[in-house]
């Protein structure tokens, strides 16, 4: 796999967890230590550390230099890369709807054919008058 797609994959995998998303939301308002991050969650510090490792590997957070606290902070780049989702979403639906256009054109053609056939059927009959 190419390094770029690998990174994006890792980013999305890291985001696919509610705790990790909550951690990111917390870090969006400023850096925080592991203890500070663990506080709002009903989780042990080791459990939080595990989540932090995943986020770190995905490049979504980094560690500060301060030796004691080692605060985590948000790294905005990978998130920005991931947030062009709306454009991708749009592309998917444009693809779907172009195919739907073709299906509808075919349905219209089919309907026209059916109507024409019906008219053909009706015409000669209407000419034939019921014998009095």
């Amino acid at each position, binding site marked *: 796999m*190419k390094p*770029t*797609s690998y990174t*994006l*994959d890792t*980013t*999305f*995998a890291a*985001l*696919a967890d*509610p705790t990790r*998303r909550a951690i990111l939301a917390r870090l969006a308002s400023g850096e925080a230590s592991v203890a500070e991050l663990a506080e709002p969650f009903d989780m042990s510090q080791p459990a939080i550390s595990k989540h932090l490792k995943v986020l770190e590997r995905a490049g979504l957070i980094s560690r500060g230099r301060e030796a004691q606290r080692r605060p985590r902070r948000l790294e905005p780049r990978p998130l920005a890369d*991931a*947030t062009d*989702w*709306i454009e*991708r*979403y*749009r*592309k*998917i*639906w*444009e*693809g*779907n*709807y172009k*195919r*739907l*256009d*073709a*299906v*509808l*054109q075919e*349905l*219209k053609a089919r*309907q026209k054919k059916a109507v024409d056939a019906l008219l053909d059927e009706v015409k000669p009959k209407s000419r034939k008058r019921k014998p009095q």
Partner: protein
Amino acid sequence: MTKTAALRVTTPTDRDVVITREFDASRGMVFDAHTKPDLVQRWLLGPPGWTMPVCEIDLRVGGKYRYVWQNADGRTMGVGGTFTEIARPSRIVITQLFDEDWTGGETIVITEFVETKGKTRLTTTIRYVSREVRDAALKTGMAKGMEAGYERLDDLLKEETR
């Protein structure tokens, strides 16, 4: 063929994603294209390379539907739910839950068909349980269900721009 209004994707409220597009056909036809399996299978496919081998639709209130997509590598993605409202040809409301629940729970999908002068404006509203869930679904959904297709598309675009 006459020009139809372009696709729009908006997030007008915290919980909704709204997709609108105009089609050059009556709303009865657009409705059928959304509810007849043999028609749905031809267009509701997602990224390039995916097909829909399973498409089951029990079109009545309380009836179930099930779609399964498959890509060239044999990877599958399934979704299903229940029809909660059917008003042919103007409106369909369904519940929707993906097998791999990367969308963060069941969503409600409202599809509306409005016809003007032979053209149909289609509005699809996907309603998530919360804003967080919606945003996460839109982001992570890309990874879980569709990344293969996107990567191929990305590579292609990169080649094009080179």
